[in-house]
């Protein structure tokens, strides 16, 4: 067995196997979005999600297609607001 053959068998084949497994593990995660890290900038547009209308329980059953508008509106709540606030 010549030197070239030795290198091919004992270095080339293990390297090929390692590269194959590296590709199999790293490539599927490539498409995933970057995970949020605390403190990073938030550059996405503001989004407001609302629950699916139940049809009869809420009055918004048929008006589900319009976008919510933030800002001054006539709808104001009639009582004191509760809630909580937190930072991280």
């Amino acid at each position, binding site marked *: 067995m010549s030197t070239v053959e030795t290198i091919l068998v004992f270095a080339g084949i293990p390297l090929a196997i390692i590269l194959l497994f590296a590709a199999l593990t790293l490539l599927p995660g490539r498409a*995933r*979005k970057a*995970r*949020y*890290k*605390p*403190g*990073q*900038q*938030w550059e*996405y*547009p*503001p*989004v*407001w*999600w*609302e*629950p*699916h209308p*139940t049809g009869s*329980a*809420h*009055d*918004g059953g048929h008006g*589900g297609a319009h*976008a*919510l*508008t*933030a*800002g*001054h*509106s006539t*709808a*104001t*709540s*009639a*009582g*004191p*607001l*509760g*809630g*909580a*606030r*937190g*930072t*991280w």
Partner: protein
Amino acid sequence: MTRTIEATSHDTATETTAAARTDQTEGQDSPFTLPELSRLDEALTMSSRETGLRFTLYLGDLGARTRSRAEELHGTSGGDPSEAVLLAVSPGQRVVEVVTGHAAARRLPDRACALAVLSMTNSFASGDLVGGIVNGLRQLSDQAGHPRGLHTH
């Protein structure tokens, strides 16, 4: 069901904040993947159906005065504001606000909201936005309970 908002009184409205954005584009500029979005969707819908309250989730900048901005958003969240619960998360400012209307506050006292906020901020601090929101919604809806006379199915 993703809604972008038109912020009229606030400077977060950019040219990308057009109201015409629909579900087809949410794969590109949404911070979440589709499975994550469906988790959020399910959590919002299920907690609203279980409790009869109206949970909405706002994700974005809240401006300098986060509390008043969140309360302003709560007033315009659609439906009956007194029964609405707004969960406003601003990852850029690292602030989460929970606003409950006065009818919702009877079933969701401030202490319960604070507990849910605490668990949410724990998850957010470790980078898990969706998990924190889903768990927070679950805690809030567990606390609010299921009113008698509400038929969910």
